């Protein structure tokens, strides 16, 4: 059981405190309810570019990093399609420094032209490093566009194309900031060697005076149900043929999400998983095969991908994947196999919860999903999944009409 206390400031900022006095550290985690899904289709990559700009100085503090490092702190941030998260870890004695820094950048950024000019370039280099200058780097750009026709999950966090980031203006930046980075759209979690009363006082002092802002009401175009299988064939300068197949799956809060998660583990959760055993070890069609999903809040994708052994035909590889998927649809998995993946989940949660940073991040995530208490009930949701649920969900997900396949051929 993770103990915590929750309160809400008058300006709508939700605050969660998790005390752990076994560590000398404190973590301050600020999660903003904005991700790449909230971007304009003509200006993608913005939420992530923005994450970079958040380190370029705020209205009263020219250098975020210097001020934190002098207090012995470290920080980082990440952006997903769903949300943006900033976190600071520092000696608990210096907790107030994190409140000072984080509240000032929620109050207002400095909006310096130099910062925008530089970070545009930095993000372009990040784009090149991860998505252009790597074999198979463009796979997810293509897969998302194939699987989503309407929903903003059709582009990646880094952006649809470099030009969107290159063309960002200071006016766009300001607009985005005041639309999304308001107390009413944010969650503050403080964990570690801290006290609830102390956090209440500091939150009122530093975040209390920030204007509420307008609650951002998300109204995204929803993906219509897919009714026909999709196929994309690609030729690229890569050494090996690769196979990718996606199926739409349930959103984060649905029961079906937990079932799909366990299906992923049954198919590829380790050396005893079905796809690895059948396709890599026994049939030796793939040198590597995985089944996973993105953990997205809205309806996401369950993916199987693998690299083919040189000389294996795409059709043979695909057929073998299909056979494993069909087995999930026709036969019940054994109780022991289900127990195995549940045990794995229990273990994973226990190891994740070891650091105050992970606990703070999880509490913020669950609060964003609607209830921080899910942190303590999550395992139970997995426990409730039955072998029949697995079969039913497999039939729902692994419907050919619900699938998007990509054959990624080596040109060499």
């Amino acid at each position: 059981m993770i103990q915590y206390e929750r309160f809400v400031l008058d300006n709508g900022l939700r605050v969660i405190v998790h005390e752990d006095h076994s560590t000398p550290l404190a973590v301050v985690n600020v999660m903003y309810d904005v991700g790449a899904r909230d971007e304009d289709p003509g200006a993608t990559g913005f939420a992530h570019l923005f994450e970079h700009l958040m380190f370029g100085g705020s209205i009263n503090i020219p250098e975020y990093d210097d001020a934190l490092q002098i207090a012995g702190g470290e920080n980082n941030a990440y952006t997903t399609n769903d949300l943006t998260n900033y976190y600071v870890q520092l000696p608990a004695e210096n907790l107030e420094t994190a409140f000072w820094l984080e509240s000032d950048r929620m109050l207002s950024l400095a909006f310096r032209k130099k910062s925008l000019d530089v970070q545009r370039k930095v993000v372009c280099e990040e784009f090149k490093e991860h998505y252009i200058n790597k074999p198979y780097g463009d796979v997810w750009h293509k897969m998302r566009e194939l699987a989503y026709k309407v929903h903003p999950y059709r582009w990646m966090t880094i952006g649809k194309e470099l030009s969107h980031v290159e063309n960002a203006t200071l006016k766009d930046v300001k607009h985005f900031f005041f639309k999304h980075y308001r107390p009413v759209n944010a969650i503050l979690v403080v964990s570690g060697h801290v006290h609830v009363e102390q956090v209440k006082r500091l939150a009122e002092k530093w975040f209390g005076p920030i204007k509420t802002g307008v609650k951002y009401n998300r109204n995204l175009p929803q993906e219509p149900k897919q009714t026909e299988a999709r196929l994309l064939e690609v030729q690229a300068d890569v050494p090996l043929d690769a196979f990718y197949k996606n199926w739409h799956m349930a959103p984060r809060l649905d029961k079906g999400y937990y079932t799909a998660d366990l299906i992923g583990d049954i198919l590829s959760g380790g050396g005893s998983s079905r796809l690895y055993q059948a396709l890599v070890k026994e049939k030796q069609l793939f040198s590597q095969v995985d089944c996973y999903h993105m953990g997205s809040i809205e309806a996401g994708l369950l993916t199987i991908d693998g690299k083919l052994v040189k000389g294996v035909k795409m059709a043979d590889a695909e057929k073998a994947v299909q056979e494993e998927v069909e087995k999930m649809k026709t036969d019940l998995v054994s109780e022991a196999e289900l127990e195995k993946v549940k045990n794995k989940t229990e273990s994973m949660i226990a190891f994740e919860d070891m650091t105050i940073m992970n606990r703070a991040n999880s509490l913020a995530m669950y609060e964003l999903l609607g209830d921080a208490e899910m942190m303590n009930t999550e395992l139970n949701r997995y426990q409730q999944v039955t072998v029949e649920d697995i079969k039913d969900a497999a039939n729902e997900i692994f419907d050919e009409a619900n699938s998007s396949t990509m054959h990624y051929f080596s040109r060499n």
Partner: protein
Amino acid sequence: MLDRKTPPSIKDPIELDLKLQPYQQFTLDNGVPVYTINAGAQEVTLIELVFFAGNWNEDKNIVAGTANHLLKNGTSKRSAFEINEHFEYYGAYLNRNCFNETANITLHCLNKHLEKVLPVIEELITDAVFDEEEIAIYKQNQIQRLKVSLQKCDFVANRFIDEHLYGFNHPYGRYTSIEEFNALQREQIVDFYNRYYRNGKCIIFVAGKLQDNLFSQLNKTIGHLPLNKLDLAEKHHHVTSSKEKKRNIINDENGVQGAIRIARPFPNRRHPDFTKAQVLNNVFGGFFGSRLMSNIREDKGYTYGIHSYFQNHVQQSAWMVSTEAGRGVCEATIQEVYKEMKVLREELVDEEELLLVRNYMMGSILGDLDGPFQIIARWKNYILNGLTDAYFYNAINTIKTVTAEELKQLAEKYLNPEAFYELVVV
């Protein structure tokens, strides 16, 4: 009105009284030492068995890594599948890694299942069979993986810079190839396994919320094995650094970035300059606020990230600058790196910047000691490098007291462009 311009008062992290939780040590019946850290609230345990089975000891390239990788691919009693299923059924994570001097087997496990999984670890280190078919699958898949990696400029650059620093015949400078995977023989792997695992030298590190009967559990499963009996002949390898200092490689005609590596040999961590140089390294390129990062990323935007660091080798280290930069700005990036070296050689670091680095490093160590796994990792590093906690307290003292003058002297001694190898892989 709230004053948002003035920072809240802080406790300077250099004032922190950092302590490294001491380990408890015990010895199994066969002489295998066990170092433990009992801490944390979660009912979990980490057990790491370290064998002196790194590529330092192999006679033929890739044999050490292969033996390590295939430890869990079958014993006379269980198939690879059954071994994996056993650990996975209990939600345990069994990993193995091969390094230069050592190779390990790491188990992460919920306490309640430890008794079920430990006996199978005994099987892996006494009874692995290295079936021909498992070796064949392994070779094929590793070759495929290598082919993909060889298209990445950073991967290629890492291989070549090590070869320049140490020579291909030194374990630190050697790397894999398709030909050498193909040439692997089962007997070489079995030989290596017999010598360096089954009859090898082993040290065990354990951390977590430890059970009372941990010692008896370990002693029952590992304590009777013929480990730590033979004196392993100590092997010597000579460094033969490359004569050629600069190299440009085109790995991908259409590459949009170049992987830059600028490196020089550096003594190991027992050398008196090592901890002081770590402070200088932080000023130079060791963290987000460093000069390389501030100049080359935050001012010029040439790269997503640039870092400098010391390689974590036991015998000899290297001081390395590493980045991936836009193809058109690689040369400009390299010139900026040398410019920052020059500034460090010629100008004293001012007190404000030095205090920031001191505080950052202290905060970072404090953060690194959070939790049992982190504490045991630090101890493992010390023990394998022949160091004690005196090293920890000396390092802290150095961070607090090293002077700007000393840092300048170190820069004059080490940060000379002519001592560095320079490599760009596009």
